[in-house]
Structures are given as structure tokens and as C-alpha cells.
């Protein structure tokens, strides 16, 4: 093999993928998370007489994904008390992966959905450690792994939600973008846009990355074409879903129109924050989460990490224009937010205090999830 090519291949392998020590750390934290989950489920489940029944863990969005895996997308809205809810609002990337696992293993749909989320959780921990190596090289991988594995919101990786897949691919996207692999980043962005509508916002950090290196990039026409192709790949996942919806339902925007069944109203995000701060403790907490995300954006902006800042800004702002509902989940599963948290708790050994608090928070989340007593876990 040509020496130059060999060097390049080796560098790519070292930078992006086959890093065994990081894989081991990811495996360690993934297993630790699973042990904590098992203990919590045994403890809380037995307290509430669930016995060996485990399917109760699949609830809310998980049930919608199970519905898609089992029956595909609805032909017409018929769910909910008004019959106006449909599973079109849930993007196909995650249920497709769960469907593949169901097909390969023959497991029940709900177990396939849960296992898919867990498998991608392992990859998300690994991806996040690699992401931190690229964007904050001095951050210890153990701390990066601990922040994601013991975050109170890591519960969503174990209850059949799409967040772990989204985080994993977000990390890969930003690593590729940092390495100026624009076609790779564009393709990953394309998959992200098939997982959540927020995946499309990767187009903004992509654009910022291109602008940062435009002198270098625009010297070669080939490279210009590749950058352009990567850019056009990002909305491809969403576009495919929209084509499918048009063919299946007759409305390419059905995923957006079906939101009518959910209590979300497009309005001024500042109004929602103000209302939240004036509301009860729960709403104050939601508003404070959004404010925290804003502060993270400001910090990233002043650190000139514009790609990360723009991503966090948009991934917080877009849901905030419709309500404060689920805000902590939107914020806590963003790679840039987790990165900043890891950087902050690294200072003055704050992690010694914060990580135990995380585990207490995680226990509380499981309690709320299992007993269904707390809207904040939706």
C-alpha cells in the first residue's frame, strides 16, 4: 500500500473508530449503568409489586415506537381520545433499527425497541468519549464516560427512546466535521435527520465548519463539490420520510401537522420561559433547564466553538417555541451540553460531589418513571 495512503488510513482508524482503550471504558460504564438500572428496577419494581414483569418499563414514546415496529405507520390518525393522534410524529430512523433487531433476533417488538436503545447507548458512551477527545483533549475519558452513563437522564437510553442513537450519531457527526470529512459528516447528518427533525439543524454547524475553512476548501473544485454534496445529504433522511408520508398519507408534512394532537402551541420562547419561572416548582425547573442550555451556548460561543454553540442553540430553541414540555430531555442529551458539564465538574474536583448527585437523580427518575408519578420524565 502506498505509504501516504497507509498513513491516512491509520490516522482515520486512530481518530474516529478503533480505539480499544476507549471502547473498554465505554463497555465499563455501560455495564455499570446496566447494573445500576437492574438494582433500581429490582428495588423499585418489587416495592410496587411489579414482580418479574419488565414490560412496564416501555412507556410513553417507547409505546409509539413499538406501534411503528409492529404495525408500521398509521394510514390515518385514529389514536387518542379525539382520534387525532398518529404515529407520524415519530421519525423512522430509530424504529427502523429496532425493526431490524426484531427481524434478526425474533424478539418481541417492545424488547427490540428497548435493546436497540441500549445498544446505541453503548455506542453513545463510546462516541461521546471520542467526541471529548477531539473537542476537549485534556478531559479524562473516565469523566466523559461517567457524565453520560450516570446522568439522571440516562434513563431514556434504557426505556426505548431514540436519544441514545441521536447522541451517538451527533458525536460522530461532530468528529467528522472537526476532521474536515464533509461527505462523511453530511451522510451522518442525513441519518440524523431521519431520527428527529432536530437532526436537520446539523446543517448549521456544517455550514459554520465550511465557512471556517473556506480558503482551504475552495481551492479544489472536487472538494467544493464534495462539500456541496455533504450539505445536500443532511436533509435527505427527512426528505425520504416526507416522500414516504406523501405516498402513505397524502401529506408530506403529516409529521408536523399531527403534532396538533399534542399540547404544543407555537409561540415566543421567551414567553414560555417567563411563564415557567412564574409557575410551580416543576415549571420553574423546566425553565431553568432551558436557561442553563442558553448559558452553555454563551460559554461555547465565547470559546469560539461556534459549531457546537449553534447546534445547542437550535436544539433548545426549536422545542422551546412550542412549550417547555420535555425540555430536560432535549437539553441533557446534547453532546455539547454534556461536554460543558464534564468540563465544569472537572474543575476543582467537583465531580466528587456531582456524580453521586447524578446517581441519586437517576434513582429518582426511575422511581418517577416506574410509578408514573412525574410528568417531568416524559
Amino acid at each position, binding site marked *: 500500500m502506498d505509504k501516504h495512503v497507509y498513513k491516512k488510513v491509520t490516522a482515520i482508524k486512530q481518530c474516529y473508530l478503533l480505539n480499544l482503550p476507549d471502547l473498554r471504558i465505554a463497555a465499563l460504564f455501560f455495564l455499570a449503568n446496566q447494573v445500576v438500572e437492574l438494582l433500581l428496577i429490582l428495588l423499585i419494581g418489587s416495592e410496587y409489586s411489579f414482580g418479574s414483569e419488565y414490560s412496564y418499563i416501555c412507556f410513553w414514546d417507547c409505546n409509539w415506537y413499538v406501534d411503528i415496529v409492529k404495525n408500521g405507520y398509521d394510514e390515518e390518525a385514529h389514536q387518542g381520545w379525539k382520534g387525532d393522534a398518529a404515529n407520524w410524529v415519530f421519525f423512522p430512523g430509530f424504529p427502523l433499527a429496532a425493526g431490524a433487531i426484531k427481524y434478526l433476533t425474533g424478539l418481541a417488538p417492545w424488547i427490540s425497541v428497548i435493546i436497540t436503545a441500549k445498544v446505541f447507548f453503548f455506542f453513545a458512551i463510546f462516541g461521546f468519549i471520542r467526541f471529548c477527545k477531539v473537542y476537549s483533549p485534556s478531559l479524562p475519558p473516565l469523566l466523559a464516560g461517567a457524565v453520560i452513563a450516570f446522568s439522571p437522564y440516562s434513563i431514556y437510553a434504557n426505556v426505548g427512546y431514540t436519544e441514545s442513537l441521536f447522541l451517538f450519531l451527533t458525536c460522530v457527526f461532530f468528529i467528522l466535521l472537526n476532521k474536515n470529512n464533509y461527505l462523511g459528516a453530511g451522510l451522518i447528518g442525513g441519518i440524523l435527520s431521519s431520527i428527529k427533525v432536530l437532526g436537520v439543524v446539523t446543517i448549521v454547524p456544517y455550514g459554520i465548519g465550511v465557512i471556517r475553512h473556506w480558503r482551504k476548501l475552495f481551492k479544489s473544485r472536487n472538494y467544493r463539490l464534495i462539500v456541496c454534496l455533504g450539505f445536500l445529504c443532511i436533509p435527505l433522511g427527512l*426528505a425520504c420520510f416526507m416522500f414516504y408520508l406523501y405516498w402513505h*398519507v397524502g401529506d408530506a408534512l403529516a409529521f408536523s401537522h399531527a403534532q396538533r394532537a399534542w399540547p404544543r402551541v407555537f409561540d415566543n420562547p421567551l414567553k414560555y420561559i417567563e411563564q415557567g419561572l412564574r409557575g410551580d416548582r416543576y415549571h420553574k425547573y423546566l425553565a431553568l433547564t432551558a436557561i442553563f442550555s442558553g448559558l452553555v451556548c454563551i460559554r461555547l460561543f465565547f470559546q469560539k466553538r461556534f459549531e457546537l454553540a449553534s447546534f445547542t442553540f437550535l436544539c433548545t430553541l426549536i422545542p422551546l417555541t412550542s412549550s417547555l414540555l420535555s425540555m430536560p430531555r432535549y437539553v441533557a442529551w446534547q453532546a455539547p451540553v454534556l461536554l460543558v458539564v464534564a468540563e465544569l465538574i472537572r474543575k476543582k474536583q467537583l465531580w466528587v460531589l456531582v456524580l453521586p448527585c447524578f446517581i441519586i437523580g437517576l434513582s429518582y427518575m426511575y422511581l418517577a418513571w416506574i410509578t408514573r408519578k412525574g410528568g417531568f420524565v416524559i
Partner: protein
Amino acid sequence: MRGGLAIIIYLLIALYLGLAYLIFNPKVSNAYRDFFIEKSSNISPFELSRMSEISLGQIIFAGKDSQVGYDNFGPGGDVRLTNNKRSKLIILLNQEAIQNAKGILEFNLAPYGTQRVTFSLNGQEIYSGKLSGPEVLKLTFPASFFIAGKNVIQIDTPDAREKGNGENEILALQLKSFKLE
């Protein structure tokens, strides 16, 4: 390679232009368009599909009966609650019912506190007053107010209010049942 990349780029641009056309030209039913796209109706296509003509003298239990369209009402149960300052009941009547109608609407309802209430049938006011406790309200009006097909009973409740416990419902009336003659 350069030519191949350019072709893929042009294909993607064509794909997105095609998609833009489809976005603005949905192929859906009128009920879907009114409810989901233009939001001019509060009766979902599913509810509309379950609606059917009602007969004179038939007691409609608002919490359970799906023959009627409930616009700005809460979910059913034993009763159905109005959920805004203006709610509508949409009923379907056939020609035979119109011919035999006496022009009577009877509501079994209870207000949330004291409420000013106005009932209109197909745009014509048939009652205006104040309710402060559960009662059976019998309204009489010219039978010609009924029309064949879709009839709209509009209920205006300007004093409707939230419970004040953080829930969003704007409550005024608890409708148990109604019938028309």
C-alpha cells in the same frame, strides 16, 4: 469523479424541488385539510367518520356518544366538559327529522360556578341567561331553525375559567346529556 459528483448534486436538487411541490400540494380529504392543515375545524377526521344522523327524542349522553361532533370539549367519561369560551355541538339530521321536529332542545347540564350562557342554533340565538347549579334546561324555538344535514349548536360561555391548578382547561359547563324534538 467530478462529473459523477455533479450529477448526484443535480439529482438531489431535483429531489428537493419535487418534494417542495408535494409539500404545497397535499393529496388529502377535506376533513383532513380542515383539521390538520388549515386548523379551521376542531373535529378530527376520525370523529367526523364516526358521526351519524341522530333521531328526534334520542337522548345523547355527551360523555359516551360519538354520533355527535364535540368542538372545544374535553375528553368524554360520565360527562363532557366545555373547554373554552365558545364550544360547539355538531349534529346531523335527515329530512324526515326536520319535518317532524317541534323545535325543542333539552340539556342536562351543570355550570362550573356561576356562568353566563348563550345557546345558538345555526347562528340563531335560542337562549341567553345565567346558570348557577345543575339543571335540565328546556329551550323552545321555531322548528325551522333546524336544517337538513349539519346543524351547529354554539355555546358561548364568557365566564369560562381555568381551575387554577396549572391545568390548561378553560371550564364552564358540564354536559351530561341532551336531546332534541
